[in-house]
């Protein structure tokens, strides 16, 4: 139900029918962009979208993606610091 993969829209194949070529790691598949096109589909070229069963269903919010990764990175650093402290404490005891 859930198998969706991010793909990059590389070309509009039929603006009237709302179809475009999406590229997933070098594999190309035509997808329908009706869900993500606001007005002229040409504006989608270069954007990343979540592809599911031949439809681009949502545009990937690059800022949100970066924010999530940043939060995870911070967590990683905080966790590492905590572990170092814990290890230090063990070494002393």
């Amino acid at each position, binding site marked *: *139900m*859930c*198998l*969706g*993969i*991010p793909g*990059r829209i590389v070309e509009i194949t039929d603006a009237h*029918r709302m179809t475009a070529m999406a590229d*997933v*790691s070098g594999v190309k*598949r035509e997808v*329908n962009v*009706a*869900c*993500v096109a606001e007005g002229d589909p040409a504006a989608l070229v270069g954007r*990343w979208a*979540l592809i*599911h*069963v*031949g*439809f681009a*269903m*949502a545009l*990937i*919010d*690059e800022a*949100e*993606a970066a*924010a*999530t*990764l940043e*939060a*995870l*990175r911070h*967590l*990683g650093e*905080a*966790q*590492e610091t*905590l*572990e170092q402290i814990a290890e230090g404490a063990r070494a002393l005891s």
Partner: protein
Amino acid sequence: MRYVEEFRDPAAAKALIGRIGEVAEAIGATRESPVRIMEICGGHTHAIFRYGLDRLVHEGIEFIHGPGCPVCVLPMARVDEAVEIAERPGVIFTSFGDAMRVPGTKKSLLQAKAEGADIRTVYSPLDALELARRQPDREVVFFGLGFETTTPSTALTIQQAAREEIGNFAVFCNHITVPPPIKVLLDDPHMLLDGFIGPGHVSMVIGTHPYDFIPRDYGKPIVVAGFEPLDLLQSVLMVLEQIQAGRAEVENQYGRVVPEHGNPVSLAAIADVYEPRPSFAWRGLGEIDASGLAIRPAYAAWDAVAKFGIGYGARRAREVAEPEGTRCAEVMTGRIKPTGCPMFGTDCTPETPLGALMVSSEGACAAYWQYGGRRGPEAAE
């Protein structure tokens, strides 16, 4: 692969697992008295087992596998109807690969194909429509199943068929919705759940507000999650932190894909093409009000039920008993684990599946077998 591999970083996973452990300890979760988190979506069940997350997180966390596997909840009678349509002369029956091996009372679609029915796997309903364009003398039928993630794509395809007046295309609609079965589970006094991991791609379509009733009426937290291991781990952490702080809210971990109010084009297409059925039968859960979708009369020309006189509502739906000894319903609703079913690994294996949970890649039984390495029933948990 961008937006995928970054969310599989092992170092970040380690950090999350560590942090999850701390919060689990802080709230007193133990193996004997665990925090019970239900992942609703079968795709999440699959991901949890594929990456071994169930064994990597603190032992005080128990994943309860929810009913969000559309193939698993499809009653056998629906498979029988699909086979009946497929066996009609002149029909090309198209389906996602997931449904091909699900056993009906007599046979699966794959078996019907071996017996001569023209049944083909497709990746997209658009490919089925293209088949109809190219073969005007054949009737192409598409097996529309799935939750809200997939519902818009069949709706948009039907609208396209209507615009182009393609008369030899129809959809056998078995689409269902996520919120109703969650309510059924929450109303069940035997179900003890502490929180939910919400379906990321369903939410991409419907947004996060359909889950407001969960914290509001039942006081449970729900975090809408993506599908990569870091998404799931971060979501588990967010659920635990809510429990720790005594909060119950809808949170969105998958903000890069899930918009708060869903996708307007998808929602409009669904509303245009479909109407809710008064009730729909779910394998394992029985009849649930307003949980299934039927094609509106305006689009009857593309409705396989109207065209072939087969299918839910066309005549008194003949429901079918579960294979003897199986406990699919209890596994599906998280009451027992696959290993709690006496048929697991004995009569029911991937080669000889008795139910859809062993056949579907999202089914808990298939996940336990494939990735979890469990091969037989275990003592009651």
